[in-house]
C-alpha cells in the first residue's frame, strides 16, 4: 500500500504535558484511516499535527517528522499555510462562517489562496463533491445558518474541498448529527476516498468499522495497535485494544 503520510517518531504536547509519545505510522493514499481511543488519548492532537494546526495553540510543541509525499512538513522551508491547504480539516461541530453566504463560505478559501478566476465553477464543483449542490443551488446567497446540522457539515466539507486538498482530516465529523445525516456523511467519505486520503477521528466504533480501511487504536498518547479495520474488530492482537472496543475498558 502506497503511503501518503509517513509519521516518524512523533512527539507532541502542551508545555510540560507530553501528549503524543513516539508515534510512527504510515497512512495509505486513497484510503480511510480511523483513529480510535478513549477521551484524552491524543487522537485529536495527532490529527492536528498532520496539518500543523496543533502549533497554533500557545505552549504547544512538536518533535519528530510528518512526511507528506516524502517531504517533512516541519522542515524550516515549508510554509504551514500551504500545508493546511493540502491537508484540510473538518471539525466536530459544523462551523460555517455565519456572516457569509453559502457561496462565500466556499469561495473564501480559494480567494485567499489567490484562486480568483472561476469561483462559481469552484463553488459548484465543491458543493457537488460534498453532495450538497442539489439542496442549496437555489439559495447560494442565503446564510448557512438556515441549513440543517447535516447540511452545515457538508458545507464545511465543501469548503475544505474548495482549496483542492490532497488529504482531509475529519475530527468527529458526525458526533453532532442524527443517524440520517451521519449516513450521508459516511457515504460521502467513502466517495471522497477515490480522490483523497482520509483520516477520521471517531468515538463511534461502528462508524470506524463501517467506513475505515485501517484503524489505529491510541491509548494515553501511544499507538497501541494499527491494522486493517476488519482485523482490529474481529481479532485484535493487543488485549488493551480488545478491552477498549468490547467496552470492558477501565
Amino acid at each position, binding site marked *: 500500500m502506497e503511503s501518503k503520510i509517513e509519521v516518524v517518531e512523533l512527539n507532541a504536547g502542551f508545555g510540560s504535558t507530553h501528549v503524543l509519545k513516539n508515534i510512527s505510522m504510515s497512512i495509505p493514499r486513497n484510503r480511510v484511516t480511523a483513529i480510535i481511543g478513549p477521551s484524552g488519548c491524543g487522537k485529536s492532537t495527532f490529527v492536528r499535527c498532520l496539518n500543523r494546526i496543533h502549533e497554533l495553540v500557545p505552549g504547544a510543541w512538536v518533535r519528530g517528522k510528518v512526511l507528506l509525499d516524502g517531504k517533512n512538513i516541519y522542515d524550516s522551508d515549508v510554509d504551514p499555510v500551504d500545508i493546511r491547504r493540502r491537508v484540510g480539516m473538518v471539525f466536530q461541530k459544523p462551523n460555517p462562517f455565519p456572516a457569509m453566504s453559502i457561496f462565500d463560505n466556499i469561495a473564501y478559501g480559494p480567494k485567499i489562496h489567490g484562486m480568483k478566476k472561476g469561483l462559481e465553477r469552484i463553488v459548484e464543483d465543491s458543493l457537488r463533491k460534498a453532495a450538497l449542490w442539489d439542496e442549496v443551488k437555489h439559495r447560494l446567497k442565503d446564510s448557512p445558518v438556515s441549513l440543517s446540522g447535516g447540511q452545515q457539515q457538508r458545507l464545511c466539507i465543501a469548503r475544505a474541498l474548495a482549496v483542492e486538498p490532497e488529504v482531509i482530516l475529519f475530527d468527529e465529523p458526525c458526533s453532532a448529527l442524527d443517524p440520517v445525516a451521519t449516513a450521508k456523511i459516511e457515504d460521502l467519505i467513502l466517495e471522497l476516498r477515490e480522490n483523497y486520503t482520509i483520516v477520521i477521528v471517531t468515538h463511534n*466504533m*461502528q462508524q470506524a*468499522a463501517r467506513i475505515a480501511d485501517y484503524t489505529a487504536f491510541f491509548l494515553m498518547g501511544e499507538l497501541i495497535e494499527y491494522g486493517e479495520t476488519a482485523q482490529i*474488530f*474481529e*481479532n*485484535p492482537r493487543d488485549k488493551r*485494544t*480488545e478491552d477498549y*472496543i*468490547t*467496552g470492558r475498558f477501565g
Partner: protein
Amino acid sequence: MPRTPLERGMEKIRREVIELGGIAKQAVLLSVEALKERDMEKASRVGELEEKSDLLNLDIDESALKLMALQQPVARDLRFVNAMIKISDNFERIADLALKIAEIAQKYEEKELLKPLIDIPRMAATIAEMIDLDLEAIERHESPDTDKLVEMDDFLDDLYNQIYNELISYMLRDPRRIDDATDLLFVARYLERIGDIAAKTGARVVYMVEGRRVWVK
C-alpha cells in the same frame, strides 16, 4: 455474574448451545443402542431429541441475530457469537444424522441384524467423548485438546474402514443380505461424518477463544 445485556445474552446462548450439544450426544448414543438392541422405543426417542434440537438451534440463531443487531459485539464477543451460531448448526446436524441411524434401526423391529454390533458402538462411545471435550471447552471458554480430537477422529476413520471391508466381505459371501450390510455401512458412514463434525467444532472453539485458525482435517 454477567453484567451487561451483551454478557447476559452471550451467557444465555452458551447455556443453550451446551444443552444442544448434550442432546446431540444423547441422540447418537441412543440411536446406536436402538439399533443394537432393536429397541423401537429408543428409536422413537431419537426422533423427539432431533425435533428438540431443531427448535433449540432456531432459538440460538434468533438470540444470536438479536444480540448482533442490538449489542453490536466486536472482537472476542463477535467471535463468540459467530462460533455459537456455527457450533449450534453442527450439533443440530449431528442430531439429524442420529435420526437417520434411528430410522435404519426401525427397519429391524421384526428382523435380525446382519451381525452383532461391536465396532459401531465403539464409534458411538468415541463420538460421545469428543462431544464432551467440545462442551467442556465451550463451558470453560478454553481451547480443547485438538490433538486428542484429531486422534479420536482418526480412530473413527480407521474403524469405518475396518467396518467397510468387513461388510464388503459379507456382501460377497451372501448377496441376499446386501441390503442389511448396506444399512450397517450407512450407519458407520454417518458416525464417521459425525466424528468429523465434532472435531471441526473443536477447531471452531479454538478460533473463538484464541482468534487462531486450526485445521483438523
